[in-house]
């Protein structure tokens, strides 16, 4: 096994061939915020929250999909990066209708937690205020598109772990939505096994179990047997 040495925020680290910058940073105690990433699922580099500066590269690189290399010098917390991360979270709040006070996931939401960590207290951007659906046709679960941030964790867990591939993405740009079975109501899906993995991995209150407080469904996440043991901690 080839091992590379690199520095992350000045800390000297060692990473095995094929490990990502994010993996090595977290092993070394450097926290990089993430949203679409979840240990145990494939990385897609979609939320851009984990972008870092790498010396010699003119572009910012997503640490979740960037493999470590010998002599790499990574910066994870420059002023510019922090400002951009704050802007990403602000954009997510502006995009759909996130009203924490009336949300099932209030205090158990990764989006809310990231906003708090980054010190986002108000929105400078104009909100888009789209009119969005809630699909509560499933017997046990429901999806509220107002709260979805398009991280596609549900799509990946359903495909990669459950093997059902009930979820996928439809539409483009701001009209992109996660859908079940080519856009049919979730309750009519013929592929959904009702396993609830999508509920467990959803970072916000978009996908939730009917009649149960989100706290009781979310708290189990670090112990989900199908994801790696060092799964991301959820703020209590």
């Amino acid at each position, binding site marked *: 096994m080839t091992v590379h040495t690199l520095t992350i925020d000045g800390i000297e680290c060692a990473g095995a061939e094929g490990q990502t910058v994010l993996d090595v940073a977290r092993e070394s105690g450097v926290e990089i915020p993430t949203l679409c990433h979840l240990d145990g699922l494939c990385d897609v*580099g979609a939320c851009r929250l984990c972008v870092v500066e790498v010396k010699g590269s003119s572009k910012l690189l997503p640490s979740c999909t960037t493999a470590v290399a010998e002599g790499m010098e990574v910066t994870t917390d420059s002023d*510019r990066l922090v400002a951009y991360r704050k802007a990403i979270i602000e*954009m997510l709040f502006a995009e759909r209708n996130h009203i924490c006070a009336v949300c099932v996931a209030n205090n158990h939401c990764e989006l809310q937690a990231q906003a708090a960590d980054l010190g986002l207290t108000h929105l400078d*951007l104009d909100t*888009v205020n789209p009119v969005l659906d809630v699909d509560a046709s499933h017997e046990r679960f429901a999806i509220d598109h107002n709260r979805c*941030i398009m991280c596609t964790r549900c799509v990946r867990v359903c495909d990669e772990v459950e093997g059902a591939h009930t979820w996928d993405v439809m539409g483009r740009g*701001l009209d992109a939505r996660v859908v079940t079975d080519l856009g049919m109501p979730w309750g009519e899906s013929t592929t959904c096994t009702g396993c609830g993995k999508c509920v467990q991995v959803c970072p916000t209150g978009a996908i939730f179990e009917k009649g149960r407080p989100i706290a009781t469904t979310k708290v189990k996440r670090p112990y989900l047997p199908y994801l790696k043991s060092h799964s991301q901690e959820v703020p209590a």
Partner: protein
Amino acid sequence: MTDLVTADGVPSAREADGAKPVRRSRRMTGPQVVGHARATAAVCQAAGCLSAQSDKVFEEITAQLVADGVTDVAVKRVGCLGLCAAGPLVEVPETGELFRQVSLDDVSELVSALKSAKPVETKPVLEPFFSRQRRVVLENCGKVDPENIDDYLSRKGYRGLVRAVTELTPQQVIDEIAKSGLRGRGGAGYPTGLKWSTVAKQPGSEKYVVCNADEGDPGAFMDRSVLESDPYRVLEGMAIAAYAVGASHGYVYCRAEYPLAVQRLKAAIHRAEKAGYLGEAIAESTFNFTVELRLGAGAFVCGEETALIASIQGGRGTPVPRPPFPAASGLRGKPTLINNVESFASVPVILRDGGEAYAEVGVGKSRGTKVFALAGRIVNGGLIEVPLGIKLRDVIFDIGGGVPDGRKFKAVQTGGPSGGCIPEELLDMSVDYESLLAAGSFMGSGGMIVMDDTSCMVDVARYFMDFCREESCGKCVPCRVGTTELHMMLTKITEGRATLADLKQLESVAAMVRDTSLCGLGQGAPNPVFSTLRYFRDEYLAHIVDHVCPAGVCALSGGESVA
């Protein structure tokens, strides 16, 4: 869903089996010419002239010549003659005459001119639109019948491929391309020789060659014209590339909005296979190469190479982070060479005449020629090819003939939605990759949209942002939400509701979208904003502070906002 892919590389049964009788009866070939034709009427059959009924003009000329019993004048369908703004065009190569805007009523006049046409030794001196151009990629455009492989062969077609597979090793082919200095004509300008060499060095025997014909920039029609006018050239370039990198299968990814290009490509693939220039044992060598056609379903982002690969594989056309680059892991995880139509179309000439000859033209690191589509407020709109390093002023005023109706030139937009606007004071700059980048624009695929003083630059920026917002795939946050937010801010400015604080926010959000987006679409989307802010900041300020649109385009509500 807009990301469906239609696979249709195989000609229909009718075309494959009964092709010849069916085609003959449907396709009039002109009057029966006895011996050598004294004169030829070359009628443009590319999309621009076709939309002005040049197919009817062709039939009418033929019918009248037949009725008059003329036997020494040929009529021929050809590809783009270049001066699209003056279509339908008919050229008589023997006399050097070019008839413009030929309507059906003009045909009798044209026919009598043809009857008395005398071939001349010295062709009349053409206007600068033609004389300032240098046609390499377009050397056959308007000269050959795009559906006739013999016509292509008669103009030195396939000599490059035959030379490559019979005389050169793959490495020598790559060396030839490297010597030519050819750079990616899709816009980014990555050295083509280096790209080929990277793919050639990848281990494994399964590799692919992909031609990116998903031309989507507003106002750009270079690739379409090349495919419609000279499809064999692109296939020859792909075959040479396949030989060089060690691939035996290729795809042309063409947008479905180009039905004529698709039709001609299908016919060309079929005929090249029959003639032994595609398929097994090409030019009696051991080299095999087949090409399939894939149609895009209307997503601009599918021109991005990783999204294009996803689309060919039948998936949603969304980009994935690079590295790994397609050269290492592309189609089906195999090394894949992706070049644009114009890059492939440049290759046959390089192999035929040598890399050094190609590199004689150009400036600095930009060698050879580049095709541009001139559009917008310009007299001679159309398809042109110029040596790199030509002055922008010469392109717009000599070749393009300047701005019509006595208006004043304001800016030229190059590089599509990722490009920028170049103002009048920079007109003396050289047209090459580095200079355009330094001017805050981008070579892009070659669209040039000329604007006069009736264009509002804030509105132009808003138009391009609207385009990017519509075409964003929605995968990454900065592009999906950022382009929408930028569009909202620009709308606010054009409606006179913005403050100076909004302008500051516009700049900071634009920088964030540029730096954090996943693919080139998002990274390039703020470019029109940056370039208009750089050269036309006063127009932004006029909207915000004075509530006036200097060009008179925007309907400002005015007054209600405090600057």
